[in-house]
């Protein structure tokens, strides 16, 4: 188990295959991060919307109690 490249620049260049390898990894990790983050964001949006609705419902309730 040893670092296979002479230098960091070498590591990035990968004997000319760098662009291919790094592009693949970049795309893959972008997708993985999207997969992970999107449900979290969706949940956040959902909670926000739900809280808004709860407030609305409460406002409605107190209003209708007043009129009755």
């Amino acid at each position: 188990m040893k670092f296979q490249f002479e230098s960091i620049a070498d590591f990035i260049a990968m004997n000319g295959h760098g662009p291919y390898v790094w592009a693949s990894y970049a795309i893959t990790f972008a997708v993985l991060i999207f997969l992970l983050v999107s449900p979290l964001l969706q949940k956040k949006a959902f909670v926000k919307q739900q809280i808004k609705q709860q407030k609305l419902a409460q406002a409605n309730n107190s209003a209708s109690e007043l009129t009755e």
Partner: protein
Amino acid sequence: MAWQWFHRLGSPRWFYEKTTPWLPWLATLSIALIVTAAVWGLAFAPADFKQGNSYRIIYIHVPAAFLALAGYYIMAISGAVGLIWKMKLPFMVMKSAAPIGALLTFVSLVTGSIWGKPTWGTWWEWDARITSMLILFFLYLGMIALQQAFQHRDTADKASAVLALVGMVNIPIIYKSVDWWNTLHQPATIKFTSKSSIDPSMLYPLLTMVIGFYVFYALVLLLNTRVEILRRENRTQWVNDLISTTNKRA
């Protein structure tokens, strides 16, 4: 007893609450595995004597391809369970699995395509496996399109479950046909490096990554299903309470 458990599994609330403690474990494990394997594969695994460094793409390409295929079966089987036992939860799993699977298929296609350029000198080749993967991608797209096309949720669930089942019956047929078609034409192009030739020093990071991807898939599927559960049960008391408590904590 077993049946009781099975039916409780059908309860979204039970599922939601039971899986909450799993999430941090799954997240930690999957991130650890994937990062380890990526570093290992990119920096420490030896270069392939024929393909040089470009082969390092294998560490994401193959796990993505595995999960893409497995994901279809997971989706179809949950659809079948939902249809047969008339449970809600499996439909939510099925619905969440479709975009994940499609994206993983996409990843495997794109990484494979990028890999092709330095190895075959071309972006695309009508190889049997590649072609099958493309068709799998279409099957996923069909699932997603059908799901979104319906406005009534119940109908969307059941209809896409039927499609997933039909697709599942067809996948082996499609694979065999494409394989046969490809051997018929005997393309003179390079074959994939055969499995046996892969050196253990290259194999271990791959295995690590495959396991990492499986755990990651489970995590993401869970997260998506949980959001779906919340959306569908948004009128129930328990979700309301859950929202209130998060609201107070925030």
